[in-house]
């Protein structure tokens, strides 16, 4: 069974202003795969994860399409079933540990609570699991830390606790929403390598949201590039780095400045992403694209599939010459 199967997902927010945040996204993952959702702010990464967790506000949100995790129809989940699914089958780590950790309980108590709720085991066993989890996320003197409150821990340590909490119930799918973005580089790399090890150890699937291509390379086997609530390009990390086909992906890679000559003029993508007040009916990147043609502005681009599980939503993706 597929771990994840999203088909034709659209999310529209209404209220003061309308935002077509997700537009016909289809995406699938096998068990144990790691996927980076890469894109700039507003491209729909967090909304995609929220849809997967059933976290979107129902009143102001219109959701279309299908989301299945291990065969479960996520969009149909309600009440107890939804509670059981969240934090059980699928769990999430955030950029800000404050979103996941309660300041008034010790970290051991919080992890144990979650395990008791989902696995139905007693307090003593749950505390033992909590201790084991703190060990696994390599928190020094875990025995003592079990009784700490979140504010008594350093930033990197809180991030580790949040990961321990998320993994305590052995989820099949871990959703990570930029959990290292606010961290310093030397702490970020520690957390990335820890997640990589734990992913192997637990065999879970991971969706890792990031705007940083380097982070995607460190953490994931596959990458889906998002733009304007759509998947612009998908492939293995190697394919995306070595052979980016979508002009937007090419621009993002150049903007990383990784191997740009010092002081050379940057081939910057002009302009800014669209506001998404209406659903894109032509290529959403066309206004900023250096190689756009009139056809790009007339209709949605065809999805070109140069290989298995590889796709590029660009009219010109099949051309041999890369965009300059």
């Amino acid at each position: 069974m597929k771990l994840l199967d999203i088909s034709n997902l659209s999310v529209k927010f209404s209220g003061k202003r309308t935002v077509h945040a997700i537009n016909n996204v289809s995406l699938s993952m096998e068990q144990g795969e790691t996927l980076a959702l890469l894109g700039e702010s507003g491209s729909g990464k967090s909304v995609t994860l929220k849809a997967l967790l059933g976290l979107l506000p129902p009143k102001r949100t219109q959701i279309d399409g299908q989301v299945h995790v291990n065969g479960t129809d996520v969009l149909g989940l309600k009440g107890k079933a939804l509670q059981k699914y969240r934090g059980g089958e699928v769990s999430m780590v955030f950029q800000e540990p404050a979103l996941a950790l309660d300041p008034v309980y010790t970290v051991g108590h919080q992890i144990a609570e979650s395990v008791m709720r989902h696995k139905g085991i007693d307090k003593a066993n749950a505390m033992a699991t909590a201790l084991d989890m703190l060990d696994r996320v390599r928190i020094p003197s875990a025995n003592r830390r079990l009784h700490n409150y979140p504010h008594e821990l350093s930033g990197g340590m809180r991030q580790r606790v949040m990961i321990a909490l998320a993994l305590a119930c052995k989820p099949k799918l871990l959703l990570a929403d930029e959990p290292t973005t606010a961290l310093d580089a030397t702490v970020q790399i520690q957390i990335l390598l820890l997640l990589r090890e734990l992913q192997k150890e637990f065999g879970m699937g991971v969706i890792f949201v990031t705007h940083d291509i380097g982070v995607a390379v460190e953490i994931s086997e596959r990458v889906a590039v998002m733009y304007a609530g759509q998947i612009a390009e998908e492939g293995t990390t190697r394919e995306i780095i070595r052979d980016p086909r979508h002009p937007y992906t090419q621009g993002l890679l150049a903007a990383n400045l990784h191997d740009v000559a010092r002081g050379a003029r940057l081939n910057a993508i002009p302009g800014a992403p669209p506001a998404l007040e209406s659903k894109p009916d032509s290529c959403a990147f066309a206004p900023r694209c250096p190689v756009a043609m009139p056809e790009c502005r007339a209709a949605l681009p065809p999805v070109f599939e140069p290989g298995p599980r590889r796709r590029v939503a660009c009219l010109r993706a099949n051309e041999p010459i890369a965009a300059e």
Partner: protein
Amino acid sequence: MSVTDYTPTIDTGGPAQPLLTVNHLRKYFPVRGGILGRTQAQVQAVDGVSFAVAKGETLGIVGESGCGKSTTAKLLIGLTEKDAGEIIFDGHALGERLSLKDLRRSVQMVFQDSYATLNPRMTILASVAFGARVQGLEDPEGLARKMMDRVGLDPNRFAHRYPHELSGGQRQRVNIARALAMSPRLVVLDEAVSALDKSVEAQVLNLLSDLRAEFGLTYIFISHDLNVVRYISDRILVMYLGEVVEIAPVDSIWQEQAHPYTRSLFSAMPSMDPDNRTQTPPLAGDPPNPIDPPKGCRFHTRCRFASDVCKAKTPSLAGLARNQAHQVACHLYDSTSGHPQAGQGIPA
């Protein structure tokens, strides 16, 4: 925009004299606590920082959060009062032949959080013209329009808008225009592009390069992104817990990071090569607290090469044998330090 609109203060010392020299700059912040709220400890935010910036040069400053980059920047323009140290601008020492007012005209700053630094109730035009008006410059609005145009914001479209109606990239252009309207000679950019999306960041970096060439500007460019700093800078200064640990020309430091901390910082950059990913983190744990920094070399608690001398004696900055312009503060490079591995630099 014509050259006559840009009226920086005159160059007094000629090209060989550094535009800015900073000697032994120090700032400790008291931390209050306890029942009586008495001062209990001090954050040693900036401790004995010295460096010079040449005319037309861009000096990049890197280091992890809390190492004192922003405090250094604010000390430079008198936004934070220094405890000790000397600030010399084009040969004139602050507080002697140079007043704070004069310094603030010649040195402008652009911060990361463009939202917090713009008055939400002022139009863009009023914001850009504000400094020029306070300084008593002629026709501040006319000047502001020209500056807006120069940074890529059409004054006819943007002059009467408010900050919340702009994107992050546009707001950062407003801040740059506002700084330039004062005709500064030195611009301090503190994480000025860090909050921007990569594609917008590239646009603003192009703009900053153009402005530097056009107006002969000198930059101090603070960022946590090593790739960005390498791209824009001539030299890089590395800070750790309030101190300078290394300062070097970009090519030299890119080729070989001399200080063990600098080497770790560079190795912490994501690899960008799917077939050659990072295997071990260069450092464990978080940076220690600047309230009570380690004695001796402040990095010794995390350094693989620390020996007894590192715990006891503070290393001072000195040029490398292979390149005197490349300076490092580490006992490994001082053959008289008493470090058992001293002399050859970082052991292979």
